[in-house]
């Protein structure tokens, strides 16, 4: 699919996702469906889907270690090795995984191929490209903070870490800026960072020709979905207010398995909720599973011990073999008779005669 079509296709899909609850709640008043039934179904799909996929990955054999590393392997004590990039034991692997999961170290090594002309001669350059890493890091951490901040709706009483995050996230007090109407004291940094980062992650797929060529609807769709999730959330917080006390009653009802659907929550909330439901339903079937997959990356989570630990290929066929020893035992007499050399020759033969 060419990129315009992909983009149009995914935008339309997101538009449909936004329109469904808009019509469903706004016009048809299906509050129980959109406020209770669909969230439960989405959450169940999310949890079961992740379990099934991870167990499926866990069943895949790992025949040997794949040493795609960026460091010297451990060999002799007098050769300096790199214990983190090329670990020989569990300790190094744990450190490598922590760097990978928390700081996206592989992405940090990202380079970008670029053509340039030096004195009229075309040349290939590998650019030191850090924008993807930066945007990815900002996006993931912002998303995490926003998700954790939402725990003020999920938990009653509100746990301390949520209050702490809120005060840290809103410490600039940008709402005190001199515009009327945008007048919330706690304008959160992460809201802005997330939107900026996702916008960049989307733009790079459109602007860079190589990435445009690689991008599919499966790449655009989650980005657009998250973008619309963020947009509805920001709209709801700063502009189209909803009664969040009632929102929390609904959410707590879901978590206590005694769902209630209070009246008077604006449609924008149901749109936000439905986008989230679509996102988490889509999650186990999509590239978003890198969330669990990063922990199972074979090139990152296995120590490079191929040279001193034997790894037996788990799908090896149980080969029936007949060793030379057994062969000799079987034909020894005949071999001695025709004068062929034997390993355990005379002695065994003599013992045989004695019997």
């Amino acid at each position, binding site marked *: 699919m060419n990129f315009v079509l992909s983009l149009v296709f995914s935008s339309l899909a997101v538009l449909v996702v936004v329109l469904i609850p808009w019509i469903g709640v706004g016009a048809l008043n299906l509050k129980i469906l959109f406020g209770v039934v669909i969230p439960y179904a989405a959450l169940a799909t999310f*949890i079961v889907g992740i379990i099934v996929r991870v167990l499926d990955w866990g069943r895949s054999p790992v025949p040997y270690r794949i040493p795609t590393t960026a460091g010297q392997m451990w060999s002799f004590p007098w050769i300096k090795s790199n214990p983190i990039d090329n670990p020989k034991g569990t300790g190094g692997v744990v450190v490598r995984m922590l760097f990978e999961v928390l700081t996206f170290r592989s992405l940090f090594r990202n380079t970008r191929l670029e053509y340039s002309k030096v004195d009229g001669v075309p040349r290939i350059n590998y650019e030191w490209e850090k924008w993807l890493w930066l945007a990815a890091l900002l996006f993931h951490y912002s998303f995490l903070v926003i998700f954790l901040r939402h725990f003020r709706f999920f938990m*009653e009483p509100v746990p301390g870490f949520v209050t702490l995050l*809120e005060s840290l996230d809103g410490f600039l007090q940008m709402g005190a800026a001199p515009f009327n109407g945008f007048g*919330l004291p706690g304008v959160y940094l992460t809201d802005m960072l997330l939107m900026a980062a996702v916008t960049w992650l989307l733009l790079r797929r459109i602007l860079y020709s190589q990435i445009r060529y690689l991008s599919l609807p499966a790449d655009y769709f989650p980005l657009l979905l998250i973008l619309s999730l963020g947009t509805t959330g920001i709209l709801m917080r700063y502009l189209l207010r909803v009664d969040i006390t009632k929102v929390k009653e609904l959410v707590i009802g879901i*978590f206590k398995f005694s769902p209630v659907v209070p009246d008077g929550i604006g449609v924008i909330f149901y749109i936000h909720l439905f986008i989230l439901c679509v996102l988490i339903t889509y999650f186990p079937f999509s590239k978003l599973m890198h969330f669990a997959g990063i922990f199972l990356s074979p090139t990152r989570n296995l120590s490079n011990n191929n040279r001193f630990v034997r790894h037996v290929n788990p799908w090896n066929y149980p080969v029936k073999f007949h060793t030379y020893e057994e062969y000799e035992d079987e034909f020894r007499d005949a071999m001695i008779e025709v004068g062929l050399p034997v390993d355990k020759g005379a002695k065994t033969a003599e013992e045989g005669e004695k019997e």
Partner: protein
Amino acid sequence: MYDGGKIIVGLIIGIGLFLSPFIYNAGTAAKPPDPQLTKKAKEAKVCVAPKAYMRESHFKMLDEWRHTVVRDGERYYKAADGKIYYKSLQVTCLDCHSDKTKFCDQCHNYLSVNPYCWDCHIAPEEKK
């Protein structure tokens, strides 16, 4: 399963974190807040704006009031029904809503909202 033990432990931790609200809320009463109006507020029957708007966006109005009063010196607010109100948190709002713990704090605590009103304004004294 290859490395099944580790994978299953990781899976349980991950899924457990996602399901933590279910576990956390299981033991708590989690009663919705119950803001109480004072006698004076009940008698007045109307606020400066309709109840639904006040529930959703009262702080937006407070912010606008602060902005227009402090920066522009406009002290009067014309409500939708034509009534004129003096724009002041302490003089107008807290005149009726004088019970902070039973009114303001009810929802604010429920949703972990920490407005900085009281950095400058004096919270009304409450009759015990």
